[in-house]
């Protein structure tokens, strides 16, 4: 397959609909996600961002673990790998080292990336492997019917926290930054156009880029926590529960209480792993 993706012919802002079909595997829709699941909104933002970068489909590889979110590669017409639970970043690391020309995107859930795959995640960040890690963060294990994940907020109900979680939740962005990721951002499915821009920036970054994407699982998290419908979840968690970095600069600490920041939260430069590896080979083979 040698199709080259041409840059978007019709700018989205001209109010013409975007044609997703060149990026999708024909005949795979409807996807398996439940009615209202945010994973599809995230996928659409990603496809628009990919188009904006002009990166050829053949130069992209999407790697995932196991979970509802990890089903994403099944729908996209890129090079794809659907691997083992928690191991997406490990497979992506191997793939990137074998084929450094590829732009590698990891699609992973909060359970996949933060629980069973926590170690792989932090070491990808530490090495500054060139890959874009998208954490579809719906605060729960969707695929296995709603167990608590490392990002389930305190007091929230899940199959394994029937009276409310008593564990503090991970802040994915803080973890990524501390572990060494050189691009760290947060977006939401509600802010789908802003997310498209953040994804574009993440795709253009060289090094480990992590985007924590607040997303919704109406089937389990929504139902357990008594949200009327998915729109209410998106309003309360993604819209009212976040502020952009720009808005936050103008708000008092009291107003920021309990809100998560959206946008690019950290950016730095340091040697990317494949470049370091090439330097090593050059030095040793001299």
């Amino acid at each position, binding site marked *: 397959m040698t199709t080259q993706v041409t840059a978007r012919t019709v700018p989205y802002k001209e*109010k*013409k*609909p975007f044609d997703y079909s060149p990026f999708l595997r024909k005949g795979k*829709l409807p996807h398996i*996600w439940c*009615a209202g699941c945010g994973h599809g909104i995230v996928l659409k933002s990603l496809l628009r961002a990919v188009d904006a970068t002009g990166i050829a489909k053949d130069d992209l590889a999407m790697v995932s673990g196991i979970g509802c979110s990890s089903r994403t590669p099944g729908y996209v017409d890129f090079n794809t790998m659907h691997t083992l639970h928690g191991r997406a970043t490990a497979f992506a690391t191997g793939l990137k080292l074998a084929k450094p020309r590829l732009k590698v995107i990891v699609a992973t859930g909060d359970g996949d990336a933060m629980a069973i795959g926590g170690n792989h995640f932090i070491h990808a960040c530490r090495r500054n492997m060139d890959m874009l890690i998208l954490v579809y963060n719906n605060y729960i294990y969707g695929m296995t019917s709603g167990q608590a994940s490392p990002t389930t907020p305190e007091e929230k109900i899940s199959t394994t926290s029937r009276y409310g979680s008593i564990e503090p939740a991970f802040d994915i962005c803080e973890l990524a930054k501390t572990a060494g990721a050189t691009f760290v951002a947060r977006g939401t499915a509600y802010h*789908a156009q802003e997310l498209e821009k953040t994804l574009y920036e993440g795709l253009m970054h060289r090094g480990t880029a992590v985007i924590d994407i607040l997303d919704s699982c109406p089937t389990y998290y929504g139902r357990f926590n008594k949200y009327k*419908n*998915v*729109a209410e979840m998106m309003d309360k968690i993604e819209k009212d529960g976040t502020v952009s970095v720009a808005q936050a600069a103008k708000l008092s600490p009291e107003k920021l209480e309990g809100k998560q920041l959206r946008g690019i939260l950290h950016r730095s430069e340091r040697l990317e792993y494949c470049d370091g590896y090439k330097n090593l080979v050059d030095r040793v083979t001299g």
Partner: protein
Amino acid sequence: MGEAAKKEWRIEIDARLCKGCEICAHFCPTKTLEIKGITMSVRDLSTCIGCQLCDIRCPDFAIQVFPK
């Protein structure tokens, strides 16, 4: 001088893909969309302003809005 002609839109909903989650209807600023049975339908096309917010947040690739 008459008023500039109001722009008209054509809304395409793919009933094969729509799962009736109602996200589009909830976030449509003009209440143009509604659920009918198990999928979404257009309540009144004349109110559509072509903002594309329904398409942007549809998780199922099911709705698109074209200039007429």
